[in-house]
């Protein structure tokens, strides 16, 4: 199992790590049992993701995908952000070992969950816009 240089870069210097004091959207996906939790904080203004932070409990790939995902959506509109797929994250990281691809799925779900939270806080039902968001009872531990 070998990580790309890009993964190692984002793991060792994760971008946008930490909490966001004035976040108006927070999402959390994954569960501790599975060994991966991603929590995302966004500050959204005029449908644009002005700022973003994350906290992650997880492996190297989990940290790197979190970091890359935040980079990919930072400054983007909500609509653009919702189009960021796990595949885009994997590509941006120049590949992930196959046993770690689920981390990129988690990253995609973290973005969606955070945006869903934003809509909820606005009193808007996120489901029609964001689609089904991560539900950790469905999360499978034994991907390998």
């Amino acid at each position, binding site marked *: *199992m070998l990580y790309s240089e890009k993964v*190692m870069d984002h*793991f*060792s210097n*994760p971008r946008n*790590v*930490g*909490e966001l004091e004035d976040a108006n959207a927070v999402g*959390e996906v994954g569960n*501790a*049992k*599975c*060994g*991966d*939790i*991603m*929590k995302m904080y966004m500050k959204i203004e005029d449908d644009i993701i002005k700022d973003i932070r994350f*906290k*992650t*409990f*997880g*492996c*190297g790939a*989990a*940290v790197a995908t979190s970091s890359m995902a935040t980079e990919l959506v930072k400054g983007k509109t909500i609509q653009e952000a919702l189009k960021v797929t796990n595949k885009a994250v994997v590509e941006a990281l120049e590949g992930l*070992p196959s*046993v770690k691809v*689920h981390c990129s799925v988690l990253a995609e779900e973290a973005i969606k969950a955070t945006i869903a939270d934003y809509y909820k806080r606005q009193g808007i039902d996120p489901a029609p816009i964001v689609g089904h968001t991560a539900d950790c009872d469905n999360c499978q*531990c*034994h*991907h*390998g």
Partner: protein
Amino acid sequence: MIYVDHAATTPLKKEVLDKMMPYLTSEFGNPSSIYTSGRKAKIAINEARATLAGILGAKENEVFFTGSGSEADNWAIKGAAKMAKGKHLITSAIEHHAVLHTFDSLRKEGYEVTYLPVDADGLVSPQDLEKAIRPDTGLVSIMAANNEIGVIQPICELALISKEHKVPFHTDAVQAFGNMPVNVDDWGVDMLSISAHKIGGPKGVGALYIRRGTRVANFIHGGAQEFGRRASTENVAGIVGFAHAAKLADEHLDENIQKLTQLRDYYIKKVKETIPYCRLNGHPTKRLPGNANFSFEFIEGESLLLMLDMKGIEASSGSACTSGSLDPSHVLLAIGLAHEIAHGSLRISFGVENTIEQVDIIVRELAQIVQRLRDMSPLYEKVARKQV
């Protein structure tokens, strides 16, 4: 670089390589050949076998070289199962995958396997074994020392119970050998697996001890090597290296144990003093001299390893063989750890070349890294808040 993952593999000792070199250069004969170069190779293997047998307290014709510790485990377990009268087998919940997955494969072939549990310290209870043995039990296999948490089982007692019931007893001593006294008669075992690369020998050579009279089917069929028990042109250099590594380990056993225990206990004490929310996994004293396995709450092991690696420290999270897998270690779950805590474990396994100064460096770096990972962990957030 500070290498503290000797349970995964060890550096090949210089003196061992020196002994191997003739067999990697001029002495290349096939030990089955009757001419001079073949005979020299044969003699080298005989001597290596005598050395190992001597250390194990075995007879020479009871020691068979294999291509790995895993092969030895597979051979012992499948070979004994095949010759067993009954279809019931017993092992423990914390075996190495070379044992566990071998039993899994036998289950698919119609054998029934009882997995003895372990207590919170990682120990198998002799009473549990006593209770588990049935008239149709064909084999008991319980490891001597665990690769992840280093716990040393009461092999002597367990083997005795097995013997009383006339059930052959195998032990995976891959981690024990070279790190504690291992004698097949003191333990009373019928089969025992060992591997060279865990004790300063080369990778790709192991051995299986089979007590005379124990019924074990062959595993690799073919030529008449190893008394007709294990076919393949012998890895002469590897075998010579294995024996020499075993000899060195045996000659220095007491001093090595003392040194490793000192490093381990110092490390354990320092970690407990320095890093909150940690727990030592495995029995505090009935453990391999070089093994210290801690769980650090709120963080995940792989990240920890990678960050240690960036600081030049090479250690392990659970067993090296399970890396790439996403399940937390079956050993840590078996001793009762919650999944999320099991995920955050770090195994340090010292070797004699490690120093107290290195332990200080490791603990210092480790404390910082654990803090850094906790700071980015959503699980720690809540704890941190409560503390304020």
